[in-house]
């Protein structure tokens, strides 16, 4: 049982921020997507830690759902990235600015 929760939270925040920065700085769609996964996992980490802190399972159940949903997202996301790569021969998100204004 976790009694000292703050370190876990700090860690997950650090991971989360790293993920955010990845999203902001990366140009490759796949890497951006991976950064998002990192953010999700940061959340997962804190969920698990909190579940342990409260001595419950609902947090862990949450984590399962997050993982499952992330998998679904991966499926959709990768399919989309592949489709775009087919039309543009690039998965650089900076090339995606056909619409503006």
């Amino acid at each position, binding site marked *: 049982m976790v009694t000292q929760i703050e370190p876990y939270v700090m860690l997950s925040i650090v991971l989360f921020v790293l993920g*955010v*920065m990845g*999203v*902001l*700085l*990366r*140009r490759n769609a796949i890497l*951006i997507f991976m950064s998002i996964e990192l953010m999700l996992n940061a959340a997962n980490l804190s969920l698990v830690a909190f579940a342990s802190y409260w001595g419950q399972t609902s947090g862990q159940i949450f984590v399962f759902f997050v993982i499952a949903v992330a998998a679904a997202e991966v499926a959709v996301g990768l399919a989309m990235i592949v489709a775009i790569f087919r039309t543009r021969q690039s998965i*650089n*998100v*900076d*090339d*995606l*600015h056909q619409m*503006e*204004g």
Partner: protein
Amino acid sequence: MENLGLLAPLVVLIPSIGAIINIFWGARLGEKWVGSIATIASALTFGVVVLLYVFMNYNYYQGVNVNPPVFESWINIPSAGLNIPWQQRVDSLSVTMMLIITGIGTLIHVYSIGYMHGDERYHRYFAFLNMFLAFMLVLVTANNYLVMFVGWEGVGLCSFLLIGFWFDRSGVAWRNSLAARKAFIMNRIGDFGVIMSMVLMFAVFGTLTYYEAGEVANPTYNEHLVEEIQHEAEAAEADLATGISEVTVGEVANAGEHTAAEPAPAEGQHAAPAEGEHETGPALPATSNDSIVYEDLGVFSRAQILSEQGGDVVVGPFTMPITTALTLITLFLLLGATGKSAQIPLFTWLPDAMAGPTPASALIHAATMVTAGVYIMVRSNVLFELTPTTMAVVALVGSATALVGGFIAMGQWDIKRVLAYSTVSQLGFMVAAVGVGAFGAAIFHLVTHAFFKALLFLASGSVIHGVEHGHHHVHEHGHDDEHDDHEEAFDPQDMRNMGGLRRRMPVTYFVYLIGTLALMGIFPLAGFWSKDEILADAWTAGLQDNNVIGYIVFGLLLVSAGFTAFYMWRQIVLVFHGKPRTEAAGHAPESAKMMLVPMLVLAFFSFFGGFMNTPRGVLGLEKIFGPHELTEWLESSVMRVHAGEFYLWIAILSLVVAIGMAIMANRIYARVPVFNRKRDPLEMMEATQQMWTMANARLYWDNFYDRIFVNPFRRTSAWLATELDDRFLHDWVHNKVLWNGFNAIAHFLSRDVDQKVVDGAVNGAGRVTRWGANTLRRSQSGYIRVYAITLLFGVVVVVLVLLLPLLQRG
């Protein structure tokens, strides 16, 4: 017979019907019918007025209020205490005015049938003329200021319509319609004064009615009336009614026989009504207003009561002494009168108004409408008497106008224009009379002036008519080829184109001469008596009340009288004496009978009209005509009227001045048989040249107005419209600032902020991050990342705002 007063609504109704018939069906009826209908309407009205006059005698000169059988109330706002009925007041003042209006009106109708013959809008002319009568009668019969104002503006409208009657006559169309418009606008300035006067009056007194039912205008008058009636009822038992049906304007004097001081003369017609109706007739009028409560009194009695009490009145947010309020009211009323009666500063419209048909000028712009201002001041005599300040202003305005009008008239070439300025001048006499408190003299002069000025205008119309016909005659016979050249320039009203008409138009000459002499004030014609009374009253005012204004007025009026004689004789000489200066004048025919008869009737009255108010002590004339008949007849309705003194020296002085000036004019103009057609002898003399130029240029009065008022008004108007409203408010404030600014912000936000600023923020934030993460090379921002950082920015804001209170708490 005591119910004759109920006929009063007819005097408005009959001419209205005439006007309506002619407006709607006149075009189909043909000249004969149109002229007859209008004239009959006018004559019928005159008949009704005569009946009203009879009624006055039966009613012991006691005024009555008449309500129309239907349609009684006009404006009635109970919660504001405003109740304006369509009520008429039949009393000696209004009956006097009505007699003048309908009497002269009928004559002018007859004259017009001949004068307007062949005009394409014949029916319109007569409709307007009838309409004018209706409105003028509304004006004089009204029993409150507001109904009076209906007539007041109505006659202004008719004046507008008749001045602009030839609004499309080729060549002068614009000038004519401009003159009409000018007249209306000038009058409107006066009307503004009347409106202000009325609203103030209502705010101070709470009513606009002259006299409520049962109220007497002049209590002192009635007191001796009562005694007298009793006295006479005993004395004149055997006398039967005789001469009533013969009563005409000229014999007004006969009906007013009631002065206690004088023994009743033999005829004693006055007794007839008294005798017949005494027992069964109406109870004698109340002899004073004491028993009536304040709320049931008219505006004049209320003014007297309030003014006796003194103290302050509350008008809206202001509190002022009653005299101040009264002064304001009367000054505004004076403004109205100056508009309608063509006084300084609003007189410049009247000369221009001569653009209308001459008979209309005679009726409207000489005899009746222009005297409305004098009428209303006499009607309001109680108010004016209570405010010395206004009285002084009135006197000065009147005498100055008399002087200015007379002066300008000396330098005019246009026959009608001379008469127009003469009218201005004579109206000045009347106004000055009001100013010195000579209300009776003002009305006296109003009446006599109506006779001789109408006569002069009609005669001048006859002259113009003749010259025009002569011109056509010449043109048809085509004497020489030059005619085509000056065809356009020929002006039948220009006195330089006349001369020698005495022989061609003898009747016209005769009546013109009578009119002229009357206007000059030559004994014993009408003008002499009325003008003399004004002068005498002015002198009396100065003498008795130690009022310096009286002397000033006297002096100015005396000079004006001299001017009058000068310009009138100049006109006689230029028009009728000497030899014809143009072929047109040489071929001018005498006018038709239709036109001559009315002139002769007027000539009669111009000659004898003065005897209706003969002063005492002049060759015993008062024994024949009765002394101060008009004044005493007016006494029943005009509280402040009083019989004037007669000063022999003043009469002689004014006669000398008039005759002297006439002789001088004769010397100047008759000595030069055929003078230069373009220039006046005075203009050619060094000494008088400047003066003449001034007079000819009308003292530059119109130019002055153009420069001070008209042009600035136009310019401001244009500036307001184009610069302020259009360029500034419409284009700049609205289109530029609001509209474009709005669009600009939208585009700025859309293109610059939403993209570039966010971009810039991203770049800035990116720079920080890059520095931290040492990833400088990836500086290009892509759009998804722009969006992501915006999102992140939002997250930071959200979390910070939410956590702020917690952080503060520590």
